[in-house]
């Protein structure tokens, strides 16, 4: 992808806000509208010029002064505890982001700034770490998270249909959050549970093998915030496969 164009799906004007106070960049049509369209050369020139003349983003934000950032006590303690466990404090970047995400539901700019203040790193640094990993949410998402594995083993056993059923039940198109904000559904790369394929990770717990009816039932239970979701499909309660007259050895 061209370095000039933003990542698909995220508006190019997205301004992380907390990093600097740059003036609003001029609007640019999104890439999908441009690809495959016959655009007169003059227009292309105008677009390019507009882009190039845009205000530069300015200097990245420095390390926040701890005194200037109000950090909830519990969050600060959690991050400090994580830092104390490693020889170098930077190692606590991922634990700190987890703590931010648990507290605010996603890695909010303000949460990242708070973590940066506690850790003594720039918010940009933590943002760069957060954007690398699939499990960090960079925008608000539905309250209950459903990740449907769509990789090889699950796909062979009907994962695409399962994902469709989850989306349908949640009223989500392809992937994303439901309108009531209760659910977030997306297809995910291998979750490491091919033995219970097709499967899904629901609020960080594994369930499988799932049928289309299970998807509907699970979504209903999640909407009602019921304590137990698909109790008979929990990975936790499964025994190891095989085992009938297995030879057990010990020296």
């Amino acid at each position, binding site marked *: 992808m061209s370095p000039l*164009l933003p990542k698909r799906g995220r508006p190019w004007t997205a301004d992380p806000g907390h990093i600097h106070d740059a003036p609003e960049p001029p609007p640019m049509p999104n890439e999908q509208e441009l690809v495959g369209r016959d655009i007169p050369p003059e227009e292309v020139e105008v677009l390019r010029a507009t882009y190039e003349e845009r205000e530069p983003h300015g200097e990245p934000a420095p390390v926040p002064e701890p005194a200037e950032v109000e950090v909830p006590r519990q969050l600060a303690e959690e991050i400090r505890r994580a830092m104390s466990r490693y020889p170098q404090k930077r190692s606590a970047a991922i634990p700190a982001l987890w703590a931010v995400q648990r507290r605010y539901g996603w890695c909010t700019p303000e949460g990242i700034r708070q973590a940066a203040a506690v850790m003594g790193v720039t918010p940009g640094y933590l943002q760069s770490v957060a954007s690398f990993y699939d499990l960090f949410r960079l925008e608000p998402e539905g309250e209950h998270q459903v990740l449907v594995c769509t990789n090889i083993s699950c796909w062979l056993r009907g994962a695409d249909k399962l994902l469709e059923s989850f989306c349908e039940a949640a009223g989500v198109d392809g992937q994303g959050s439901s309108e009531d904000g209760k659910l977030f559904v997306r297809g995910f790369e291998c979750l*490491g549970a091919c033995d219970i394929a097709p499967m899904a990770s629901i609020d960080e717990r594994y369930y499988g093998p799932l049928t289309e009816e299970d998807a509907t039932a699970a979504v209903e239970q999640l909407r009602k915030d019921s304590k137990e979701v698909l109790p008979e499909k929990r990975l936790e309660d499964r025994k190891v496969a*095989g085992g009938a007259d297995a030879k057990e050895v010990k020296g």
Partner: protein
Amino acid sequence: MASQETRLLFRNIDEPGLASIDTYRKLGGYEAIDKAFKEMTPEEVLKEVEDSGLRGRGGAGFAMGKKASFLPRGDMDKYLCCNADESEPGAFKDRELMQKNPHQLIEGLIIAARAAGANRCFIYIRGEYDLQGDILDRAVEEAYDSSFLGEDVLGTGEQVELVVHRGAGAYICGEETALLDSLEGKRGNPRLKPPFPAVQGLYDGPTLINNVETLSNVPHIIGSGAKWFTSLGTEQSPGTKVVSVSGDVKRPGNYEVELGIPTRVLIEELAGGPLEGREIKGFFPGGSSSPVLKAEEGLDLPYSFEAMQEAGSMLGSGSIIVFDDTTSVVELALRTARFYHHESCGKCTPCREGTNWTVKMLERMIRGQATPIDLETVASVQDNIIGNCLCVLGDSMAMPVGAMVKKFREEFMDAIEHGVPGATLGAPSGDPVIAPAGQEPMPARVGVA
């Protein structure tokens, strides 16, 4: 006929409460640690592990004792990282081992730390394994309380600290140098080797990195001796192996066997064989990154590191994914390629671009928009990835996809002609820039210089 399973790591695996230290000790756990710290010197422990011939169970199959012996001696901080970032499609053995028997891993880790002279240990577990992470956290706390961990292990004055570190969803962090970067709090990009981690790894210190299953073997080797351990398995691959079998079989799951048993036994007897009325078309013998084998060439091979290598594939992490005659190999290739495309960290061009283009071309084939030359291009892209990147993520796509093109060529030719009807493509990953046959080329993208 007696079952073909041999349970060493899986002994007592479904015993209620095995994840707690009391039950684990009641069943003989933490006895080897006593022996390793009170009756043996670090050199003797290392020698025992070397003599056992234990090969790494994470994929490369490198001898663990040898790897540990590469660490320099001396008084500096040394690190031991347990790689629990199991994310390869088809692999789920470490999940079971950590969830059901976390103390076996912790005991192995402490003993390995003694062998390597490491005082700071980490378990890098993938973020998706939240349940297993919680179980490990609890188990580590119990081990600290019983003074198996801490500043003074079992009153011997030795220090071993252990931290469970959770990732946050990135396959690349299972690559050992990317794992180190991630553990240092950075984006998980692989490093240039050399220097190898044994010399300059975590925080630039000497570092030993081992897989969960490898370390889980260590208490048994120290407890019962290397000699006993080598009586299991084959001469070159001693011990047992937990094999994950999944895909189109009746009883997918983890089966612990002695290496060298016929692959057919694993797939057809233990995992129950193909679904009713179907036939096995082929399988990945060692996870999604191993070159696929056709049923007729692979089923009768012994399941061992050597035999799989000889057949042009690999045992890898020991994960068999079976696909049957209802599967389109072109679609399978796309699923495989998409995974690596998604997980490529983007540092090296051949991998970043190669995975991207492979996905695009396979999508065109499935839509029936490809030309015969695309097949040659797909094959040549794979050749150009292999060996040209810092790590083997790109190779891990190139090898299976290359093998699929080679072994199931007629299916690809057929797709080029007619597409793959009924295939679920999902969202397209990008528009083809090279125009399909007989169509006008797309206008260049705006902004592309």
